[in-house]
């Protein structure tokens, strides 16, 4: 029997309504195309962009603040911050574009923080000059708000909320549309599109401890991979060092370490001793995120952590915590945390560095399929520098929108195979009928535990092979999982669909991490604990016709000769 589905047609389909997706939709609409922008939950109130608190990279030299700063200084900061693994063609584009996006958002009503009319900027570790622009401590939320306003101004953008894309449709290897589930009604929609932009964000929720919101489950990685896109640098997952692990109601909330240490906060193990000097003797608690996270993970692994798997941050000497940090310490207080002298914290997954391989036109290797923002990869290398994630969404969102619009204009729409639609709907609906002993949510929790313990910050050949083995078992159980509860807003159904994606991404991470027999930036191998420049290359994975993985490596793209500084 053929399942009834509504078919919607557009020039450009944008999947994901965060910073990158909104910016892509705006640009495609400006080019005169009809655009459909879909988001898994209510747009403007979900996704990752709104959770970004503070910094947005813009080069202040051009804004008249640090005259010596500019795209060239930023270029080397990003190259070195990424441990020389970032593709420099993308970094060039980013550095030249970042400043203009600050001004563009300003013209749209962003109202960046200013003193005497001049932008104020924070200097983050690894940055030569202060260039982290901000708006109060809700930069991401404000950005999302002005972007949504711009989206609304374009009559040729149709926004659809609560829509979960489960498959990219292809025709002869070219992206031709998508199949999606309307979460509220349980009905399916089919999109017939001239081109598709993926802007679905990262996959921090693969890990038990993460600073990422509930929907950062990496849908886009799985969609792209199954559509034939090349996935690159999947082993690189950035962790933020100090995320709360208990109480679990605030698990993942970030304690702003770099702000509170200079005010007297201490990071200690379960014996009450400071420990960072053992891992980074000079910078100690002010080390970069990757070194902090590594030090904390090693201390916890050595058995000097607390009962919830973290170490402790003692903020008892820091004044005005609740007033100054309402969205972290204020939240802790309101759920009943009485003192801040022993908050248990551990590194939490913060940014998925790896993802869909793109070129400076945001093209994936699949014609008609574009990617921007966290779901894409290439510019950050082995470690993402603070402030670059938000700016990346705007620089590359604009390019993805413009290029996808051009592709849709100059290439006649092709027809996807209706059989593919029927098959996909049958696959997704198969989780609805029948019963299973385990719930999808239980299996997601098991996956998150497994990935955090074995394939998170500290990895080894043994732990990665072990994880891959356990994933085989989990995958078998996941394919049989069932979600009772009907078709309407059935979270278990969504979890069941997500679970299949998440396991697929977890496999890619482990396979890629096994290849990289060195330690660099966010990737740390116990069995190869030093950087090794023979690995100054990217590992890429594609799905081959037999449903197997093809792993290749590709050189780092360099545009400039490095000058010793």
């Amino acid at each position, binding site marked *: 029997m053929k399942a009834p589905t509504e078919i919607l047609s557009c020039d450009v389909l944008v999947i994901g309504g965060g910073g990158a997706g909104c910016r892509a939709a705006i640009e495609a609409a400006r080019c005169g195309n009809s655009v459909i922008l879909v988001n*898994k*939950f*209510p*747009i*403007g*109130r*979900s996704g990752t962009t*709104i*959770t970004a*608190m503070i910094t947005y990279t813009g080069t202040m030299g051009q804004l008249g603040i640090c005259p010596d700063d500019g795209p060239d200084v930023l270029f080397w900061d990003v190259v070195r911050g990424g441990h020389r693994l970032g593709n420099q063609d993308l970094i060039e584009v980013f550095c030249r574009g970042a400043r203009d996006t600050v001004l563009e958002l300003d013209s749209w009503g962003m109202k960046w923080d200013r003193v005497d009319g001049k932008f104020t900027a924070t200097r983050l570790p690894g940055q030569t000059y202060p260039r982290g622009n901000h708006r109060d401590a*809700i930069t*991401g*939320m404000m950005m999302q708000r002005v972007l*949504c306003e711009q*989206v*609304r101004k374009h009559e040729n953008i149709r*926004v659809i*909320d609560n829509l979960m894309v489960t498959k990219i449709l292809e025709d002869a290897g070219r992206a031709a549309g998508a199949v999606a589930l309307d*979460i*509220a009604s349980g009905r399916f929609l089919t999109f017939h599109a001239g081109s598709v932009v993926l802007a679905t964000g990262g996959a921090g929720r693969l890990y038990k401890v993460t600073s990422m*919101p*509930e*929907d950062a489950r990496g849908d886009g990685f799985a969609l792209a991979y199954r559509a034939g896109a090349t996935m690159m640098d999947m082993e690189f997952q950035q962790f933020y060092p100090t995320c709360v692990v*208990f*109480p*679990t*109601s*605030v*698990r*993942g*909330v970030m304690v702003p370490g770099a702000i509170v240490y200079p005010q007297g906060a201490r990071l200690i193990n379960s014996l009450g001793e400071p420990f960072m000097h053992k891992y980074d003797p000079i910078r100690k608690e002010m080390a970069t995120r990757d070194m902090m996270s590594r030090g904390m993970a090693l201390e916890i692994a050595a058995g000097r952590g607390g009962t919830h798997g973290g170490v402790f941050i003692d903020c008892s000497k820091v004044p005005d915590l609740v007033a100054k940090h*309402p*969205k*972290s310490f*204020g*939240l802790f207080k*309101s*759920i*009943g*945390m009485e003192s801040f002298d022993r908050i248990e914290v551990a590194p939490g997954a913060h940014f998925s560095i790896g993802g869909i391989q793109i070129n400076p036109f945001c093209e994936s290797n699949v014609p008609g399929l574009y990617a921007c923002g966290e779901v894409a990869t290439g510019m950050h290398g082995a470690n993402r520098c603070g402030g670059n994630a938000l700016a990346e969404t705007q620089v590359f969102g604009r390019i993805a929108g413009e290029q996808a619009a051009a592709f849709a204009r100059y290439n006649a729409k092709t027809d996807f195979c209706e059989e593919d639609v029927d098959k996909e709907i049958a696959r997704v609906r198969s989780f609805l009928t029948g019963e299973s002993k385990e*719930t*999808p*949510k*239980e299996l997601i*929790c098991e996956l998150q535990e497994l990935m955090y313990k074995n394939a998170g910050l500290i990895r080894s050949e043994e732990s990665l092979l072990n994880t891959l083995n356990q994933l085989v078992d989990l995958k078998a159980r996941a394919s049989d999982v069932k*979600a*009772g*509860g*009907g078709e*309407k*807003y*059935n*979270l*278990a159904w*969504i979890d069941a669909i997500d679970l299949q994606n998440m396991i697929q991404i977890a496999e890619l991470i482990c396979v890629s991490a096994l290849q990289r027999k060195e330690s660099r930036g966010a990737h740390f191998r116990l069995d190869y604990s030093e950087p090794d420049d023979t690995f100054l290359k990217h590992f890429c994975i594609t799905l081959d016709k037999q449903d197997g993985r093809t792993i290749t490596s590709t050189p780092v793209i360099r545009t400039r000769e490095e000058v010793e500084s």
Partner: protein
Amino acid sequence: MKTKTIQIKVLRQDPSSGQEPAYQQYTIESYPGMSVLEALQTVYGKVDSTLAIQGYACYRLVCSLCTYRVNGKLVLACRTPVEDGMVIEPPPKRNVIRDLATEIVTER
């Protein structure tokens, strides 16, 4: 960790079913520091996976999607400690999709 068995009541409904909304009581283990949001997630995850709550949560007071009516008062569930006997309902004046999942209308 001190845990305590508590009961919470959730107003459940499916407007398309033609049936009247009804309260359902759930029993869970709570601990000091558990929020209403975590309690609802615990019900969904461990007790009754057919309970519908908003599927997204930001955990840092920016999305406000976890706005529910708790004991008659509109609160953010993520910042409200759960207590025995609490009654949890969807916010009034919102179109209910199912149970605590409601339509969020952003002007456009």
